[in-house]
């Protein structure tokens, strides 16, 4: 079983850069992979893909609604389109296009969304979407994936090409701890990743917050508390088996995510636990508020998405056991 001490920080890299490498590899493996963008090829690190596969790159201009429909049409033609833009413009701006032309129509479109959450930073709340996981997980048939670091975002970008059906792949802008397997061998869509085994408490996290969960577990270990750390990179379909197995053992759960509490990972976890295994649960998430301008770390601190806050919530959950 994996132990906390097994987790090694490799380096710091942007998850969006992992996406750029991943789509390039997916394009090499499968000639049906097409990259679309809405004037954000640079931000999504598409340069190498565009250079190697110019005929399979579709520039849509600043017109995300049309991009979603074009992707659906490409899917009808048997292609595997990846739409790329910021998470806000990948979801809330084009929700009805995704709902009708992609989800309801069952199209094999990969919606790839960078700059999600508060860690987008200085651009402020207009761009810091914190509702996207909720919106996307509500759509019937939509798979929602939130990888935790560069290596895993690369692995996910490759894996979704072989996965039939619409997918929402969410990642971020800043340089962040990179610690999962370089070859992506520890990633499987729909399968929770057990990062560290523990006895007293389960910390279930996704995205950037997974690394903070690891650090929180280290702090808790120093206090003599054994925390299990699970990277729930696939929000939907949720790996209920892994969640219930961990909760049955530790009887106490904390979730952590860079998203509104309403509609996020924590809510999905709460639903499963309430229905199948009522368990004390605390959540680290944004509390019904918009973000603002600031550095990523300042914003995470101000909105309570920190390792310290995970520890506070862990102790609160433990007290409810």
């Amino acid at each position: 079983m994996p132990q906390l001490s097994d987790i090694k920080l490799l380096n710091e890299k942007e998850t969006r850069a992992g996406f750029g490498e991943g789509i390039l590899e997916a394009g090499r493996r499968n000639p049906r992979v097409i990259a679309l963008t809405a004037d954000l090829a640079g931000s999504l690190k598409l340069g190498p893909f565009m250079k190697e596969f110019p005929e399979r790159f579709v520039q849509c201009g600043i017109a995300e609604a049309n991009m979603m429909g074009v992707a659906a049409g490409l899917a009808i033609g048997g292609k595997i389109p990846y739409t790329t833009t910021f998470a806000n413009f990948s979801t809330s701006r084009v929700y009805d296009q995704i709902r009708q032309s992609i989800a309801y129509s069952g199209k094999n479109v990969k919606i790839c969304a960078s700059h999600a959450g508060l860690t987008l930073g200085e651009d402020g709340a207009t761009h810091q979407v914190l509702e996207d996981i909720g919106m996307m997980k509500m759509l019937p048939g939509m798979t929602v994936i939130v990888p935790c670091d560069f290596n895993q975002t690369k692995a996910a970008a490759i894996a979704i090409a072989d996965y039939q059906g619409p997918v929402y792949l969410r990642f971020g802008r800043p340089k962040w701890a990179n610690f999962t397997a370089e070859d992506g061998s520890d990633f499987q869509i729909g399968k929770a990743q057990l990062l560290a085994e523990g006895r007293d408490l389960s910390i279930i996290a996704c995205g950037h917050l997974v690394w903070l969960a690891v650090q929180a577990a280290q702090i808790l270990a120093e206090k003599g508390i054994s925390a299990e750390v699970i990277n729930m990179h696939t929000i939907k379909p949720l790996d209920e088996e892994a969640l219930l197995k961990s909760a049955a053992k530790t009887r106490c759960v904390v979730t952590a995510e860079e998203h509104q509490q309403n509609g996020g990972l924590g809510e999905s976890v709460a639903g499963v636990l309430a229905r199948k295994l009522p368990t004390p649960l605390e959540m680290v998430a944004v509390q019904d508020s918009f973000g603002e301008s600031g550095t990523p770390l300042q914003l995470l601190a101000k909105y309570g998405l920190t390792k310290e806050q995970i520890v506070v919530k862990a102790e609160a959950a433990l007290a409810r056991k």
Partner: protein
Amino acid sequence: MEISELKRLAGQVRRDIVRMVHAAQSGHPGGSLGCADFMTALYFHIMKHQPKPFKMEGRGEDIFFLSNGHISPVFYSVLARSGYFPVSELASFRKINSRLQGHPTTHEGLPGVRIASGSLGQGMSAACGAAIAKKLDNDERLIFSLHGDGELQEGQNWEAILFAAHHRLDNLVATIDVNGQQIDGPTGLVMNVESLNAKFSAFNWLVYEMDGNVMEEVIATLEAVREAAGQGKPIVILMRTVMGKGVSFMEGTHEWHGIAPNDAQLEQALKELDLATEDY
């Protein structure tokens, strides 16, 4: 198919439309009747397509997208009568457990439908994507799409219109049903979209105009646009139609955009429409 036969068939399609909407006591007869000649020409004379087995990708086939999904009755009628599914299934239109949903969808697996439409303004984008896919596959068949004139009030269309010209999608033929009517009244009063010719020309499309209720003109125009394809520009046909065409009391008014005839009105309508083959 002979023009006279196409005309008779369009009459049969119109019978299907009023009977379906009457049976469901809901649906959109006006636009469906207005587009009956065009849809009949497309499915029985112009497009190369394979009803059985239906293939989503449509390789080597001409592909059609209905963007104004509320005129599903005319779409379902031509699909059934060209062999995509049994004509008897038209009786299930808008009923529970039906593949013939109020607005077309792939969700129930109805052959011939490639994407859901109903929420307006999305079909041209999908048509653009399918047009790119055909180009990538060196497939020289065409993409046809149909849109309402009122539907062009949706901004996404103009994103797609820019996109198609920029990417030189000269295998795309979009037809606009210019009947000048929408739910709240004449299009010119609700939100004027004219001049469509000037607008599409300015967006660098090849523009054709035709009377969509004169079969000879519909056939001639559709044959002409096939010749015009492949010249670097997307093609639009501004198709003037009369909403409710073929049923005297439904003609030319937005009142019949989305309501169903009662029993007496159905009887009157069927008296005016030739029985070409047989009713479902």
